């Protein structure tokens, strides 16, 4: 006689509370496959944990974003935000789709060059640009987004040395009606700092002022804030034309669009409630079209969105290490994915799904990572099916920041695999070995 499938016995206390107007499914469907490849076979082949990226999703989300803007505004350019995910394979997909590179460090600048991006299509952002890299950017005709006056004066010094006319923009921070107001990047709009910097550039005369940039924040849930930002940059653009008869070529609204992740503290899933590309596009392009710009002098609109483009394409596959209970009786599950790999679990309620079918019974569970640290919590409270030791699961929407901000803490970083549009898997970053780490260390003679 064939034995029946086992599912551990559970007892679940029924809690009554205030009913919500909209129900949320208690039991999410399993994620058995990613782009046609079974999760179990991916784990078997590449180990656990392992990051998986879907090229098909990367390209389709990019096309969706591009369509949202280009159907509303005639001149749009995306610049891939390297810091969001600077794996070469990922960057090259975005460059194939037509994105420029937006970099914030010398390291990222070199990566963009190595990825074949033309110097003039690299936007150099960030507060820390060394003189060496500023010179490199000037010689390559890259666009430098000036963050502070010290940087402006360094560029002015380099102008003589390079005998070039650097292409620059200033970074403008401003009140867009949201909190927190990011005022650490660039020059303030309201108190006149921005005009002060623009006047210095225009009077010096040896820099080519090509654009205006802002980065109003991150995971902005209010598209209208971008409308305010676009309006204020348009005012500066028109003011410069009136005062200096100089045309600003582009307005760069930076990044900060929300992805489909759910921020901590939000009740309904981000996939249902967060603004869409169309929402952002409508706010930004309406603001620009409703200014004094005539159709023949509309500035190019540059967007540096990163998170909203790549989050959905990233998955992190993991394995259950153990189940146990806290002193309160609360179920906890320990998994092999910790905050060392899933940095974004500090601010998202990441969607977790099992890799196979279970019954409809679920338990409220706290999911801990494998680190010997109390802060290593992946989900404080999530309804999970009755996972057993060794079962696989999938963390969704992890494409942004986790593969750049991950930590080599007490263990080694895993492989990253890209599934191409034909459904073939490619390792695009090897797992670390202990030699990678040990080879960078040196012992003083008396400790050998």
């Amino acid at each position: 006689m064939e034995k029946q499938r086992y599912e551990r016995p559970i007892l679940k206390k029924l809690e009554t509370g205030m009913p919500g107007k909209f129900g949320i499914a208690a039991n999410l469907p399993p994620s058995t496959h990613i782009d046609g490849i079974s999760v179990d076979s991916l784990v078997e082949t590449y180990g656990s944990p392992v990051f998986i990226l879907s090229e098909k999703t990367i390209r389709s989300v990019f096309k969706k974003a591009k369509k949202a803007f280009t159907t509303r505004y005639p001149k749009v350019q995306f610049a891939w935000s390297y810091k969001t995910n600077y794996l070469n394979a990922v960057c090259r997909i975005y460059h194939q789709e037509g994105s420029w590179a937006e970099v914030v460090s010398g390291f990222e600048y070199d990566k963009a060059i190595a990825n074949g991006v033309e110097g003039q299509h690299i936007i150099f952002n960030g507060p820390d640009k060394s003189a060496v890299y500023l010179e490199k950017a000037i010689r390559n005709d890259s666009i430098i987004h000036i963050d502070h006056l010290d940087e402006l004066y360094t560029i002015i010094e380099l102008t003589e040395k390079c005998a070039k006319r650097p292409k620059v923009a200033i970074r403008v921070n401003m009140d867009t009606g949201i909190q927190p107001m990011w005022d650490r990047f660039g020059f303030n709009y309201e108190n006149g700092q921005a005009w002060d910097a623009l006047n210095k550039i225009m009077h010096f005369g040896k820099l080519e002022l090509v654009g205006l940039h802002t980065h109003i924040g991150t995971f902005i849930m209010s598209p209208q804030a971008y409308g305010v930002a676009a309006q204020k940059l348009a005012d500066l653009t028109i003011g410069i034309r009136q005062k200096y008869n100089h045309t600003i070529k582009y307005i760069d609204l930076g990044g900060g669009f929300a992805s489909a992740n759910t921020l901590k503290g939000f009740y309904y899933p981000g996939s249902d409630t967060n603004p869409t590309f169309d929402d952002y596009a409508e706010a930004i392009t309406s603001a620009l079209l409703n200014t004094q710009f005539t159709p023949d002098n509309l500035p190019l609109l540059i967007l540096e969105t990163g998170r909203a483009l790549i989050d959905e394409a990233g998955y992190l596959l993991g394995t259950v290490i153990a189940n146990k209970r806290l002193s309160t009786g609360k179920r906890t599950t320990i998994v092999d994915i910790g905050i060392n790999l899933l940095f974004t679990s500090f601010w998202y309620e990441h969607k977790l799904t099992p890799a196979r079918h279970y019954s409809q019974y679920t338990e409220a569970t706290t999911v801990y990572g494998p680190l010997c640290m109390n802060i290593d919590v992946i989900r404080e409270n999530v309804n999970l099916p009755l996972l057993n030791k060794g079962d696989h699961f999938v963390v969704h929407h992890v494409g942004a920041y986790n593969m750049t901000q991950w930590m080599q803490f007490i263990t080694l970083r895993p492989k990253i695999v890209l599934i191409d549009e034909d459904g073939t898997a490619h390792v695009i970053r090897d797992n670390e070995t202990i030699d990678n780490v040990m080879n960078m260390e040196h012992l003083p003679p008396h400790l050998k």
Partner: protein
Amino acid sequence: MKLKENIAISDSGYLFNPSTGESFIVNPLGMEVLQFVKKGKSFEEISREILTRYNVDPITFEKDYQDFIHQLRQYLLIGSDE
């Protein structure tokens, strides 16, 4: 170990404790174990029965059984060992 006599159990796996007003649900295997406990069967007897019919190893079942009993005890659905 005895299930408290006033605990009401429906065939569909719904439990009601009239002393506290609390309600619970159990899954099908939980229901089976609960019925065995109600009949006063020992762990060895229950384990033998479950291992014969379900695809589970003895160690896993013992761990899950202890966890289940612990839950029953935590919610005051069973009395202390007599």
